[in-house]
């Protein structure tokens, strides 16, 4: 059965979906792909070039590194430069420029930074370096937050005291509501993230779909999955409907993964969080609570939230809202490239600017 799903990657599966899509798209249709992993898949498979001309895809705020605020990035870099501190992070963060340089620059000045694949690796690192304070950079959406909460639970259970998490985790539904309520947003459908939804369930988009009369369709990551979801959005628009649909049922249920959500709720509480491009959004971030508060790096190092201006000339904020496309930024490909990035959207492998640059869509 599982092997049969290969059709979602094959020409014999893609062609009939494209035929249907061109029948259903009968006027200008603007769809936002919320998730950075979708953005990458769309570019990698060249989907933009084969879609009906009237269908425009707009990349949204679903790249965790890209939406991390400049103040948080600066604090992470500052922490890495403190004596006795070792920072553990996902690789995407290394080159993101802070006001005084990136983590990579800090490493050249002697900062200890380890890149890991799983938050659990931070536990092992903390055990190996008992004389140091190990700080895991907690970046990610609902897909990653349960893994980080499971790591914190294990740290507490094992009595690991030299480990903390810099809380910069963010939640997708509040950001979508903030985005849709901001002025000048012209989107007729949302292609909703697949793996965030594996945790929070398709039902998480009901409120947005109802409030903004917006088709919200959960999608997988194969090219066929993405075309299926676009087709579902186009059909809803043509029929005047606006509902939540799940086109990724092999990973996503309506109610979501309740066990993951319970662990997340046990360890974290919501807080207002600052998003690059979107500003401060109420209850859109997560921080360790109660008996787990000890594991908050903000608390352990008495860090106060910092408001820091974004890099001069960088228009990542507008790119993240879908207000402009990367080539409309004067820095794109000139002052800002993946080798020497100015803003996070050019740094992250899932950043919209990097995707445009790498796949040669420079305008």
């Amino acid at each position, binding site marked *: 059965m599982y092997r049969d*799903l290969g059709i979602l990657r094959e020409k014999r599966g893609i062609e*009939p979906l494209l035929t249907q899509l061109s029948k259903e798209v009968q006027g200008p249709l603007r769809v936002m792909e919320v998730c950075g992993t979708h953005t990458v898949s769309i570019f990698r498979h060249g989907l933009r070039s084969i879609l009906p001309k009237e269908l425009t895809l707009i990349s949204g705020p679903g790249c965790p590194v890209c939406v991390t605020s400049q103040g948080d990035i600066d604090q992470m870099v500052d922490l890495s430069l403190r004596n006795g501190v070792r920072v553990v992070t996902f690789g995407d963060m290394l080159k993101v420029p802070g006001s005084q340089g990136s983590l990579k620059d800090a490493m050249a000045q002697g900062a200890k930074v380890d890149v890991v694949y799983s938050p659990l690796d931070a536990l092992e690192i903390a055990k190996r370096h008992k004389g140091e304070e190990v700080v895991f950079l907690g970046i990610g959406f609902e897909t990653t937050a349960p893994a980080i909460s499971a790591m914190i639970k294990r740290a507490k259970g094992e009595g690991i005291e030299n480990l903390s998490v810099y809380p910069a985790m963010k939640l997708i539904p509040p950001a979508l509501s903030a985005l849709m309520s901001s002025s000048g947003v012209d989107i007729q459908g949302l292609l909703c993230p*697949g793996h965030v939804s594996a945790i929070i369930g398709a039902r998480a988009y009901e409120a947005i779909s109802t409030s903004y009369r917006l088709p919200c369709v959960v999608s997988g990551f194969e090219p066929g999955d993405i075309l299926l979801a676009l087709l579902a959005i186009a059909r809803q628009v043509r029929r005047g409907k606006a509902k939540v649909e799940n086109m990724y049922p092999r990973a996503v249920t309506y109610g979501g993964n309740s066990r993951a959500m319970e662990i997340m709720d046990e360890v974290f509480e919501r807080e207002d969080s600052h998003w690059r491009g979107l500003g401060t959004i109420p209850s859109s971030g997560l921080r360790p609570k109660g008996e787990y508060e000890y594991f908050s790096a903000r608390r352990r190092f008495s860090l106060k939230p910092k408001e820091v201006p974004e890099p001069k000339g960088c228009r990542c904020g507008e790119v993240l809202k879908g207000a402009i496309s990367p080539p409309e930024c004067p820095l794109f490909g000139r002052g800002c490239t993946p080798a020497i990035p100015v803003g996070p959207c050019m740094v992250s492998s899932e950043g919209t600017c990097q995707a445009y640059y790498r796949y040669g869509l420079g305008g």
Partner: protein
Amino acid sequence: MCLAVPMKVVEVDGNRARVHAGGIEKEIYLDIVDREPGVGDYVIVHAGFAIHTMAPQEAEESLRLFHQMAEGVGD
């Protein structure tokens, strides 16, 4: 960063499992998975954790949706 891949379970040991996909074998954790997988099940793996155990009927439902949409039928 929300990349997650389906992998086949080849061994389960308490809260850990060995999984396999495309010649790669990995050890993953089951702390947050929605349903305990058995050997032979497919799980979706993200950052060292299984986040979903795929039921055979869920894969069938994905295929059914594909055929329905590709043929232009249904609601």
